[in-house]
């Protein structure tokens, strides 16, 4: 065995240029795989973080009645005493922060034209502890009284504040400081319309927020929508988890526990609410993995070629070894070792390069704005930097897959060599 390894190793060294070129192909395949995996993980994390931080939160809690009829935004089915529930949920295992939100259908206009929107009532005190709207804001955040007041708004009608998507504002020809007319149906079914002053404009990664969403405060909505302290949902932020799978699992667990603790409540994790989106992420990822596997298979062709050339150059040697009593299996093993040695070299170089690139991606990041510009709508921020995610499992997979590919690639010509009779091999020219 040692001699076979020695022969294989020395043949690799003897044809080091050829072996190195093949190993480099494998190295590129492995390194690209590791880097792309890290990038994809980073993108997935950004996408999911954006989903959670901008709209979905980790877990949403509704009344069961509201959830069943949520498509029609039935304000009357909201949570009547949210404060007690907020206090209770705040002490739940895994829950970090809780904030109320109330969604309603409305029309926003500039007194000439109007557009249908989804209105979101927020608590300016607690909302930023769960959502990160402030990070995407031009102008200022709400300055009106904070908290879910149960009585009429303390602010005068003209002081009512609104934040809306920048694209929505542009469609209506509006900008900061101007007044919009918001038209909505109150909790009791009455039509109400009032002026709101634009205090902030949002440019997020969620096109829904940018184009068709407006935000107002409970201080204004208690009066404007007759909420009187009622809220339609509570949004929970969970304690942070290491990776997406853990985050999904924890969110599902918390949602399930809340649902089981009270039959009048329905809790849904972001994974349940946006299952389709997560599935899309998986599919997108599978597509890219297939592309990268193709790169590795191209590297495999290189290994087949290297071993095949080695076999043809050494067919007489095969004849001699068989004449000396080497079995077919040992001939196969000798050439396979040679292919594996090249593959291993490529895999190790690929892993080293891949890890170096991954470290760069994790700590330095990719300047997206310089690469892609603002493409928006994909759920990924195309400004600032995109950072990679550490994934040792992917590195291990890439190396093992590379070795498996090398093994199969080397086996094909090796078996061919072993099948030749000793005489045919000795007479091979």
């Amino acid at each position, binding site marked *: 065995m*040692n*001699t076979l390894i*020695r*022969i294989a190793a*020395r*043949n690799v060294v*003897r044809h080091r240029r050829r072996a190195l070129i093949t190993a480099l192909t494998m190295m590129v395949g492995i390194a690209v795989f590791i880097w792309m995996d890290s990038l994809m993980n980073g993108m997935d994390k950004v996408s999911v973080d954006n989903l959670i931080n901008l709209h979905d939160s980790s877990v949403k809690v509704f009344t069961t009645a509201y959830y069943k009829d949520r498509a029609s935004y039935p304000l009357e089915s909201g949570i009547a005493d949210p404060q007690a529930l907020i206090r209770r949920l705040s002490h739940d295992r895994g829950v970090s922060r809780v904030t109320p939100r109330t969604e309603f259908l409305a029309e926003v206009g500039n007194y000439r034209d109007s557009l249908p929107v989804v209105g979101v009532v927020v608590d300016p005190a607690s909302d930023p502890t769960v959502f990160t709207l402030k990070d995407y804001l031009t102008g200022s955040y709400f300055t009106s009284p904070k908290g879910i007041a149960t009585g009429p708004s303390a602010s005068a009608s003209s002081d009512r504040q609104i934040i809306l998507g920048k694209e929505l504002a542009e469609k209506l020809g509006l900008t900061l400081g101007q007044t919009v007319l918001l038209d909505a149906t109150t909790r009791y079914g009455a039509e109400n319309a009032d002026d709101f002053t634009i205090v902030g404009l949002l440019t997020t990664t969620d096109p829904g927020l940018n184009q068709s969403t407006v935000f107002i405060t409970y201080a204004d909505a208690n009066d404007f929508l007759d909420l009187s302290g009622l809220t339609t949902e509570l949004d929970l932020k969970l304690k942070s988890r290491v990776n997406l799978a853990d985050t999904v699992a924890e969110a599902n667990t918390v949602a399930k526990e809340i649902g089981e603790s009270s039959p009048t409540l329905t809790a849904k994790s972001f994974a349940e609410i946006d299952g389709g989106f997560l599935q899309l992420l998986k599919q997108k990822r599978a597509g890219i993995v297939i592309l990268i596997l193709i790169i590795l298979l191209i590297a495999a062709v290189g290994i087949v070629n290297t071993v095949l050339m080695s076999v043809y150059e050494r067919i*007489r*040697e095969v*004849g*001699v*070894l*068989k*004449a*000396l*009593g*080497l*079995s*077919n299996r*040992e001939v196969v093993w000798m050439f396979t070792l040679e292919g594996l040695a090249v593959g291993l070299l490529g895999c190790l170089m690929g892993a080293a390069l891949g890890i170096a690139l991954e470290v760069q991606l994790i700590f330095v990041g990719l300047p997206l704005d310089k690469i892609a510009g603002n493409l928006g709508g994909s759920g990924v921020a195309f400004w600032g930097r995109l950072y990679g995610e550490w994934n040792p499992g992917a590195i291990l997979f890439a190396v093992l897959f590379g070795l498996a590919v090398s093994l199969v690639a080397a086996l094909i010509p090796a078996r061919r060599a072993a099948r030749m*009779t*000793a*005489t045919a091999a*000795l007479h091979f020219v």
Partner: protein
Amino acid sequence: MATILQLEGVRKSYQKDEQRVEALRGIDLTIERGDLVAVVGPSGSGKTTLLNIVGCLDLPSSGSVLYDGRELGGMSERELSRYRKENISFIFQSYNLIPVLTVLENVELPMVIERKLARAEMRRRAEAIIDAVGLAGMLERFPRELSGGQEQRVAIARALVKEPIVVLADEPTANLDSHTAEEIVALMERMNAERRTTFVFSTHDALVQRHAHRVVTLRDGLIQSNGRSAA
């Protein structure tokens, strides 16, 4: 003497380009244990084909080859491999050394493949036989660093080192000067006498023919004569 190899009605034909070549056309030959047989004949008479068939490197088109009474024709690839490993050694006309192994490693190779001896014993035997063929001091050289004659001597050392029962040698002295050729033939004679190693040479060399117990003359794939050496 006991019969070690017996060929009965061995025929071998193969296709070369468009032509059907009858390399052997019915060979009956018996080789005794400890025989030293020189197979002679003009080029194309079937000498190398005969050696290949005796060494199970090639199978006859018809007829049978018996080794120690056992028919080789029905053996599996694995059995043939074991047969070669345990009983036969080859000396090829074109040396066929493994280029990436040193002289010492090349000579040790048959013992490594056979896996019967301890590492130290392999080394001792290899060094002794390399010394016997006059290459002491060249243990660590690679084949590319040797002359044709030196390569031939390494090939001979490789064939003899495992002390096989039968040595099949295709023109073993073709690339040696007369002095070295005599030394090599003497070494083979010594092995033949001491260990009853059977030697079958394909040769044109009168020296080898002189030392052979028997000379088998082939012509056009048939045995023309089979008799005691003139020596």
